[in-house]
Each structure stands twice: as C-alpha cells, then as structure tokens.
C-alpha cells in the first residue's frame, strides 16, 4: 500500500474501532483542497494529502461543534503536529482527545510525502523531536525579514502601513490559527476598548501586532494565517520574527514538548536584559 492508501485504511480502522468519532482530513475541491469531516469508515476514501493542503486542521479542535465529536483523528503535517503538541501543553486538548495521522515530507524539497502512522500525542512529540527538530522557516521569509530589518525604520513603517492598510479586519488570520482559541478575543472586549475594531490604520496596526505577539512562542510556522488572509498581508514576517527571537533569546520552539512552559508566562533569572537600563 502507498502512503495515501495506508492513511485511508488507518482512518477507516480508527472509525470502525471507535477510537475516533471523526476523522478530520483533506478532500479535493476542484483544484483546491478543503477540509473533510468523516464520521463513517466508508467515507475514508475521500481523504487526500499533498502540498496544496495548507489549512491547519488543528484549528477545528476549538470549535464547539467539533468538540462534541471527540476523539478525533486528524491529518497533520509537522507544523500541524506541533500545533497539536502546543494545544496539549496549554491544556486545550487531552491525550485521549486526538489521534494524529502524521504525514510529512518524504525527503527535503521532493514534494513527495510519507505517512508516519496513527500516533498518540506523546508519540507525535517524539516523532517531532527525532525527525523534525530542525524545521526552519522558509529561507525566503528569513531573507525578507533581514532585508526589511536593514532598511530605515521609516521605510519599515511605510512598508507595514501599506500592508496593514489592506486589512479589513475579517479575522481570517485568527480563525485559521489553532493557537487563537480564546472564546472572547481581546479585540472583542470593549470595556474598555483596547484595540479599535475599525479597519483604519491605528486599529489595524494594533490588531496585527497584538495578534503576532499573542502567538509569541506559540506560532508553529504552519502559515495558515497568511494563506487565509484574503488581502495577502505578509503575516508570516511578523510570526517568524517573533519565533526566531523566542528561539534565539529564550531557546523556546513552540510545539515540541508536551510539558513545555509558555514563553510568555514563564521566565528565567538570566533572561536577556541588555535593552534595560
């Protein structure tokens, strides 16, 4: 059996054995991929997986309607696996809630993929550490961050002003992100109103910054937010900037450790403070 056939067979078996009430995976929708929720073993044949599957399905685990269907088996690429480990570390899901149908690249840049099997969260964390410990952001992103960091602060302000000006505040970025699971988002709290909800420059600036900040040490690099943004705002530049800082300054990479302490919310006596006088 090839990878896809094994994946489908596992999905059918989990549903048949009652180990999962729903399989959340990808199906074909024209030239695109869409999520599919399979509750009947006979439906497992509709599962597909390839590089076009950019949505992070772990985002569904916060949805009340989906939570009634737990335990769920979830098709997960390495960044999605990291999201699942992060959600477990943050007590959003339990070991018994999820079976991970782990998929990953067969080899560097080949476009081919392989199936690692149906894993528990603990096995997923182990797989991540063994096989995907060196997951790095796309080099283009790092290049872009570097070149933006090299220009004047006014030029950066102008770049982001233009980028954020397109934001309509549809919150697709938030919806697509598994780490954004607050039932009431900060931007929806209006007594007092901290962040303007109007699609105007100051509110857009505050929203996009705070969204990235709240994902600090939690973003797993899946790029679902950027893929979700209808306006093409380069959100990953912010996410990667923060993730790199989290890794370099505090040694924290999100979603590898089921017992990880959160970056914001924990501290060390010898954290960097050369910027403090």
């Amino acid at each position, binding site marked *: 059996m090839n990878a896809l056939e094994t994946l489908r067979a596992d999905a059918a078996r989990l549903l048949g054995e009652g180990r999962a009430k729903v399989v959340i995976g990808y199906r074909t929708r024209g030239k695109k991929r869409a999520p599919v929720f399979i509750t009947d073993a006979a439906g497992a044949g509709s599962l597909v997986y390839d590089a076009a599957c950019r949505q992070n399905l772990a985002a569904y685990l916060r949805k009340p309607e989906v939570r009634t269907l737990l335990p769920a088996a979830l098709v997960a690429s390495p960044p999605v696996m990291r999201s699942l480990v992060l959600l477990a570390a943050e007590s959003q899901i339990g070991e018994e809630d999820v079976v991970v149908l782990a998929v990953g690249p067969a080899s560097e840049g080949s476009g081919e993929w392989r199936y690692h099997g149906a894993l528990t969260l603990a096995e997923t964390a182990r797989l991540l550490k063994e096989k995907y410990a060196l997951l790095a952001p796309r080099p283009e992103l790092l290049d872009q961050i570097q070149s933006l960091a090299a220009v004047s602060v006014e030029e950066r302000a102008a770049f982001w002003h233009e980028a954020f000006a397109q934001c309509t505040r549809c919150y697709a970025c938030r919806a697509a992100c598994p780490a954004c699971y607050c039932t009431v988002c900060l931007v929806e709290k*209006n*007594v*007092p*109103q901290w962040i303007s909800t109007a699609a105007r420059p100051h509110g857009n600036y505050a929203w996009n910054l705070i969204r990235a900040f709240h994902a600090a040490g939690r973003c797993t690099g899946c790029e679902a937010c950027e893929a979700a943004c209808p306006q093409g705002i380069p959100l990953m530049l912010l996410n990667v900037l923060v993730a790199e800082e989290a890794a370099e300054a505090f040694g924290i990479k999100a979603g590898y450790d089921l017992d990880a302490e959160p970056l914001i919310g924990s501290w060390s006596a010898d954290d960097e403070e050369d910027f403090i006088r």
Partner: protein
Amino acid sequence: MSGNLYEASVMRIAAVREETPDTRTLRLEFADEAARAAFSRAYRVGMFGLYGVPGAGECALCIASPPTRDRYVECTFRRTGRVTAALADREAEQRITLRGPYGNAFPIDDWRGRDVLLVAGGMGLAPLRSVLWNLLDRRAEFGAITLVCGARTAADLLYKDGLAEWAKRGDVKVTTTVDPGGETAAWRGKVGLVPAVVEETVPPNQKGVAAVCGPLGMIKFAMPVLVRLGFAARDVYTTLENRMKCGVGQCGRCNIGGVYVCRDGPVFTLEQLRKMPAGDL
C-alpha cells in the same frame, strides 16, 4: 429623504432616578423644540429609541414614557455594557443624544373598549410602563386594566413609585410578585414566577388583549398560560429586544428569520411569533 439619518437629537437629562441598584431611569428633554415636535408627531407607544453617549456609542432601548406625555422622553436601562455604563455615569443637567422613534407600535387604538392585561418581568416593565400610562391617560377608552409584574427580588422591581401610584388609583388592578427567595420581611406581594402568578390571579375566559414583556424565558412560559386563559394568539403582544445598531433595517443584525425586529417590530403578536423560526429567537 435627505440628511444624515445618524444625526441625533441632543437631549438634556432633566432627572435621574435610581430604580434598582443597577437600573436607572433618565428623564430627557429635547434641546430643540422642532426636534421635540417631530418626535412627538412620530411616536406611538411601543416604538424604541437609540440613546447615545458620544465617545461610548448608541444603544437601542424602549421608550418608557407614553406619547401622551410628550414634553419629555424617559428611558430605563440596566448597566451592562459600554454604552449603558456611560449612560449610567451621566448626571442630571448633562446631555446625551437620541435617535428615533423607530419600529412599530402597540395598536392601542384597536384595543378601545377591551380589557387589557399587561404582564411584565424584570426590565420588561419599562416598555409596558409607557403602555400603561398611555392607557391610563386615556382611561375612559378601555375596559378593565390589569398589571401583573414580577422581578427576581423585591429590590429589583422597577418603578416602585409608579407601582404605588397605580395601586392607589383603583382603576387598574396591580399584582406584584418576586421569584421565590427574592422576598423581604416587608414584602406584601406574591411570591412565585410571573407565568404562575398570572395563571393564579387572572380569571379564565379572557376576551381582551394581553401584552407580555420580559426575558425570553418568561415570555415563552407566559404564552401558553395566556392561551389557556382564553386570549387569542392575535391578541397577545410582546416586544423582542434583539441586538441593534442602526435601528432602520440596514445593519442586518436584528433579523429573526426574515423579520427585521427594528422595522417589523419590536412589537409582535403571538400569532406572528409562531411563524418565526424558533431556533432564531
């Protein structure tokens, strides 16, 4: 029609009354006589207004004063969110804004010659207060008038002065009730949920009209009681209090099925209510 429909009238707060620990009534007077006259011409009992505090926003509230007393407008609100908190922080002689009146009305002209039962729970007394005053100001035109009104506790009853005044008049029968546990040592009213008290105190074979306002749960339980008492579905009225922003049928959030509460309501009959999708209420 021309002009910015979001331009509101400036209102002076003539008086502030504490109704309950978290509920207040503001008596508002128009800063502009032409605006007052226009409001008075349009206002029928049951319509609502959008009360605004610049800097905080606007919120939709019923108009708690009747059209028969058109020198002022009263609104009663509980401090709940951003706008009601700002309204609650305003004091007498300060100013707020008002848009409206919007929506439909209780067809009280059609009620002439008939008995009227008003059933209110909690904040639901606010819209029925304007109905009651309107009926009382035109007392001779209507049959027997009965008010059954309840609150969670004795302290939560609105319009204590009004209740006392109505009880004294003799031309309206007033029954008050509090939820079990909400009574005090001095409480002389009933103890029990409003629908049960209605069933207990209102005689059967009713031929008149009834208006019910209060929390959705109370309305749902009161409706079958009223039907059992003989009220026809077309004679039972209620008001729906959906979230609103524009008040004029454009912002799209007050829909229940195809009904726009701001425009087709807020007053509906039980007959209309039955046609609405229950899952959207």
